[in-house]
Structures are given as C-alpha cells and as structure tokens.
C-alpha cells in the first residue's frame, strides 16, 4: 500500500513550466530515491508536493487524502515531513528552539519523537543544545534540519539531497541514520545526485530529467541498465 502517490504533477515558476506530469509512488516503510542531475526538477518536485511552489496542478494522494490543493501547513500536519536541501535551519534559534518549532502531537502507531530520542539518533546535536543554529557546521545543520522535521512525528519524509556538501565520513553517518529511520517504520523519499549514497539506503529509484520521470524500478533493475545511468545521471 502506498503512503504517497503522485500523478500528473505539473509545477511552474512564473511562466516557466518546471515539472511535466511527474508520477511516483512511495510504499509504507520504503526508502525510494529520486535521482537526477542538478536542475532536473528534484527539489521542485518536493517543493510542489508540500505546496511551496507558486503554481502546481496534479493529483497527490497522501495517507488516503488528496493534498494537491492543501496549504503547506495542512500537509505537514497530516504527517508529510519536508527536509529542504539548503538546510533552512533558523540560525537565530538554538538547537532546542529549532526542535521546538517542529514539535507536533504524537501520531497513532508511531513512537513519538522527543528531543532526547533525537539526540540519541544524532549524538552531535545532544552536545550543543544551547548553541544557535548559525554557529554549527554544515553536517550538524543538516542533522538538525532532519531532527526538526521528525519532531512533527511525520509518517513519511521528503529528504532533499541529504548528502550534499557533506564530508565522506558524515555521509556515512547520514546513511546510517536514514536506515535507522526506515527501521522505525518511516517512509522516506530521498532525492540524490549521488548514486553511491542512494545505493546504501534505497529500495527503489526514480530518475527525473528536465521535469519528467524517465525511469522507475528497483535498485537492481537500475543496476542492470547502464545505458539509463549514462543518459540521465553521468555528469
């Protein structure tokens, strides 16, 4: 059963159409990668799903509800968490305060997230609870962004390029954390340019190029198609 199912999703910035009939599915407890080059439409897909583009159209089903016309905060309250790629933490707020902004009531069937549980998942954060977000490293900020979204007790999360700009060792920590989240029962749609990182965590993958989904299948199926990899992912 899918948690999130998207069909015919179009999105525009001003007169420019960025997404063209995007369709994808995210099953419960699955980790699915959305792969594509820079500018292919990955971030726009995510922003369109949570209603942060100026104009969108299409069908977006989430937990059995149509969210294509809902406001951003309503979508978040239904349990679709969004972690933006540019780590938009609140730099003036401390780690604790950043988490407080994300706090929402517990969701049935999921163990509620608390700051303590998140500090266990991301030990670095536990050591800097009173530090303003602006004085953290890139990797720490990325973890805080994820932790902050988890405070809303989402049932599914959109992770936009979580490995971008991180040191190799931190990338491994990040992959481990995502696998942990999957074990917790979270459904995760993660966008990536880094095929290696996607392999570590994903069950399935979609490839997007120029606003259109060009491929969808399991990781094994993708491995068997070097032509597709070369056409849409090679730089």
């Amino acid at each position, binding site marked *: 059963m899918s948690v999130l199912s998207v069909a015919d999703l179009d999105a*525009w*910035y*001003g*007169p*420019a159409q*960025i997404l063209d009939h995007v369709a994808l599915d995210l099953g419960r407890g699955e980790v699915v990668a959305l792969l594509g080059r*820079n*500018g292919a*439409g*990955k*971030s*726009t897909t995510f922003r369109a799903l*949570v209603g*942060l*583009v*100026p*104009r969108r159209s299409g069908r977006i089903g989430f937990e059995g509800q149509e969210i294509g016309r809902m*406001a*951003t*905060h309503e979508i*978040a*309250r239904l349990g679709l968490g*969004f972690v*933006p790629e540019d780590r*938009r933490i*609140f*730099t*003036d*707020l401390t780690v604790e*305060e*950043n988490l*407080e*902004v*994300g*706090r*929402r009531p517990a969701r049935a069937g999921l163990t509620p997230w608390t700051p303590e549980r998140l500090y266990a998942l991301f030990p670095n954060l536990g050591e800097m609870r009173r530090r303003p977000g602006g004085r953290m490293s890139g990797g720490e900020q990325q973890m805080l962004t994820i932790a*902050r*979204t988890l*405070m*809303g007790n989402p049932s599914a999360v959109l992770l936009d390029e979580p490995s971008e700009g991180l040191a190799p060792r931190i990338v491994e920590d990040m992959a481990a954390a995502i696998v942990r989240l999957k074990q917790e029962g979270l459904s995760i749609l993660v966008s990536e340019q880094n095929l290696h990182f996607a392999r570590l965590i994903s069950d399935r993958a979609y490839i997007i190029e120029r606003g259109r989904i060009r491929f969808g299948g399991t990781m094994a199926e993708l491995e068997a198609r070097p032509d597709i990899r070369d056409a849409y992912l090679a730089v």
Partner: protein
Amino acid sequence: MAFLIVQALTGLASAASLFLIASGLSIIFGVTRIVNFAHGAFTMIGAYLAYSLTERLGGAFGFWFGLFAAAVAVAAIGAATEILLLRRIYKAPELFQLLATFGVTLMVQDLVILAWGPEDLLGRRAPGFTGAVMILGQRVPAYDLFLVAAGPVVLGALWLLFNRTRWGILVRAATQDRDMVAALGVDQKWLFTSVFALGVFLAGLGGALQIPREAVSHSMDLRVIVEVFVVVVIGGLGSVPGAFLAAVIVSEINAFGILIFPKISIVVVFLVMAVVLVVRPFGLFGRPEAARRTTPGATIRPWQPLGRAGRIAVAVLVSALAAAPAFAGPYLLSVGAEILLFVVFAASLQFLMSVGGLASFGHAAYFGLGSYGAALAVKWLGAPMEAAILAGPVLAGLGGILFGWFCVRLSGVYFAMLTLAFAQIAWSIAFQWVAVTGGDNGILGVWPTAWASKPAAFYWLSLMVATVSVAALRILAFSPFGYRLRAVRDSTLRAEAIGIDRLSTQWIAFAVAGAVAGLAGALYAFLKGNVFPDALAIPTSVDGLVMVLLGGLETVSGAAIGAVAFKALSIWLMSQTDYSKLVLGAIIVVLVVFLPKGLGGLADLVRPSGTGRNDASGSSPSEAAR
C-alpha cells in the same frame, strides 16, 4: 547639571511611548514584512479610546483599566484589519502594503473627527502620579518617572515573551523563514494575526499612556508615524532592542536639541538618522534585507516604444486637449492646468518607481522644492516667471542630488522610509524657517507674467510642459541610460557584473525624477499664486503614489492616465463631501486589493488570466532554475 539630568529624564519618559509604538511596528515588520503605515493611526485611536474610557470610568481603577482596555480594543481593531485587509495582500509588492495601510490611516483621520470632533482633548492625570518629585532641587513629574520605569519593564516582558514561550519561538522562526515554518505545520495565518494584534496593542498602549502628558489630537497619527519610522530605521527594522535604543536616542536628541537648536530641532533628529544609515544602512541592530524586485511580471511582456498608431493617437489627444479653451471656462481651465501639472509630477514618480524600481514615499519633497524654488526666486530675487520656473527644477534637482545620495544606498522599505524622512526634513525646514519661507503662512503673490496670466495661456503652457515632460521621460526610459536603469532594477548583481554602477545609475535617475517633479511644482506655485508647506507634506507624496498605482505600476507612462483620473476624482470629492479623506482612503484600499495592476488591470478582471503570479516568498530566480 541638575537641569541637564532632569532634561534627560524627560527625554527618557518620552522614549517610553515611542519605544512601545516602534517595537510594535518592528515586530509586525519582522514577521509579516509589512511596514504598517497605519501604526500611527492605531496609536491615535488608542489615545482617543483611553481618553473616553478614563473619562467615563473615573477613579484610579477606572484610569488604569481604561488605558489597558483601550489598548486591547485597538488590538482587536488591528486584528480585524489584518484579517479583512492585509491577508489579501501579503504576497503583493511592499509598496501595495504601505499604500493599503496609508488608506486606512486616511480613513481613520476622518472617522476620529466624526467620533470625537476636531478639538484637542486633554486627558486626566494619572491617579497616584499627579504630583512632582524633587530631584536635585528640580521638580520632575511623578508620571514621567513612572514612564521612565515602564520602558525597560516592557522591554523585559517582550524579551520573556519571545524567548521563553512557544509562541515567541515560532514568531522568531517565522521572522527568519516563513516557508519553513509552514512546512513544519505552523498555520501562518493565525501567527500573523496574533503578531499584528500584539504590535498594534503596543501602539495603542503607547498612545494611551500619553494622555496624561499631552493633548489628544487628530493630527498625532502622521507625527507619530514619522517619528516611529525614524526610530525603527535607526534601530533596525525587526529588532526590539534596536527600537528601545533608538527611541532613547531620538527622545534625548529631541529633549536636548530643543535647548541647543530651538529652530531646527526636528532637523537634528533626521540628520542623526542620515548619519546612522550611511554608517549602518540597516540600522544599529538590523540586518540586510534580501533584495526583491519591485515590478514583478514586467519581464513577461517587455516594454515597447510607441508605434506609429500610438504616436498618432497621442498627437490627436494632445490636439484635442489644446482645443479645450475654445469651450471651457476659466475654472475648468485652471482645474485642467492643475491636473496637467500633476501628470508631470506622477510621470516623474513613475520614472523613479517603474523604470528605476525605487518606490519613493517622499516624492512630494521635490515637487515642493520646485514650488519653493520658484516662489523664493520671485520673493527674494524679484525674478520674472520665466526665470523663476527654471529655479524650481534646479532647486529640486539639487535636493534630489543631496537626498538621493543617501537614499540610493538603501532599497525596498528602507528606501521608502528614508525618502519619507527626507521629505519630512524638507517640510520641517519650510515650516520652521519662518524668516525665509514664511512658515505656515507660506509665500503669497507668486503670479505669472502678463502673457501667461490668462487661464487659457497658462493651460496651454501646462499642456506643453506635460507633453514634453512625459515624452522626454519615455525617451529616457528607452535610451541606453534607461536600459541600464532597468537592468539594475531587475538584477543588481547581473547588472554590476557587466559593468553597470548601480549607485550612480540610480542616483542620476533620482535627481532627474526630482528635477521633473520640481518643474511641476514651480508651475503649480504660479498656478495657485502661492506656496505652503503642504506642497511637501506626506499626503502629496501619497497622491503621487496612488496616481502611479492607478495608472499601472508595470507601465512606462500609465501614471499620466492615473493622474488625470485621481486628480479629477479628488477635486470633485472635495467639492462634494467634508469627509473626502474617508472616501479617498477607502478608494485606495479597494484599489490595492482589487485592482493591483491599475486601471489597465480592469481588462484582466473581465477575463481572468490563467497564470496567477502570486510569487511565493522565497522563490528566487536561482531556486526557479532548479
């Protein structure tokens, strides 16, 4: 020494109210990005309501409860304004929000007179604080000491609110990144409403606390708003501690300035502000605003110079207008000349705003400088009309060069507020320098030379000046300079990368717009035969803004049509009703909400365009590229 300390205390007492009001404005701006022009009006309502409530209730409890209840009532009015009006225009350019709240201000001015009458009202003294306390042998009103203590108490309370409550944390988060807060499940609508209500509550409280100190009057709104703008510009928009520090600075300058420079006390405050802005362009505690384009959508249909058909149409129109003296009487002709001069004024503002992307809230300064330039040339130099008319644009152009040097260093709302402040400097000079300008009595007897004294002749002169000015500004918009100006407007970064100097380009545009406005002002002085400080006052600036808005912000010279429609309407309204501000304010509000594209946008209302261009905040071009 004792005297100086007492004077400093008086300054601190004045700072309390100013801080409350300014912090409210700052908090509202921080989250909603709206510069609430109606903040002074809310302060005034707070003072009037406090007056009525304390008179009605009586007694010590009645007094203090009355002050508080007045502020709560103002907060409720503010929340209603936010829900009914501002919610519709959050995504519009900042100019529209300033204008909408100015429309509210205009309406409140008339409503207050309807409810409380035009006389100043003296409130009762604060029970328990009626006497004076001896400090170093000087008498200090006890209520002043109460206010001196109240300021820091409120500052502390606000600090607790923003740092120790979930609501406060959400507000601080929203100040930084509204989209992200929404993506975390926070309903911004109610966050905005509650922030607006708090900000307006502080404005109302600031007004209410003043009633034992000074009379309540229906002109306090504009005085308050200008002072508060100065405070938040110095302190930094969005910063509460900045508002506190700046309120103290401004109040102390006022307290001591009056001793040292009694004649130019107002000017000193503005000079301090100018210095702060040059050293720290975003105020003492402020931080840079992300630059935003002020003319969205213009890229979709690029501007074109008039084609053959357009030129013929304009020629026919001008010829028809030139024929007016054949059938119109002297009154109509003088109204016609007045409208034509405002066409020039509006066209100069449009050049600055639409072509330059610089929304000035103080363009009246240059119109007024033009008027005074011409009038002073006649009065002090005995210049004939022909020479005096040239003195107008020269003085206005010099004013544009001087003020513009400061203004173009800023952008967006800071630019708007600084232009407003400079216009107030010009106004206060005209108002206070009685020996030269005649102060409030103005300069009389500025009459045209014999050949132009017939209404028809002056009308033709105005028509010629209007035609030439509008045409010249159009030609300039399509000249290489115009392209550079538009490049800077659309993307400062890219323009500078190809070698265009933003500052000098915008500075020249500012001076040109000023000189053209001055030309209109100079002729206006001769049309009326006199000049008063009103020519430089805020309402004149706002008239210009409404004309540009009505004509269409995204057009090259739609302001000409806007000026005709608006000026004709306001002259007609003045003759029909005593409450023209109420009607005018309502018109501005309706215009901003329902006709944001001006009269030309009427067509869009009939057949709605499919692509809503409500640019979600935070969608910069770089993000669009992804």
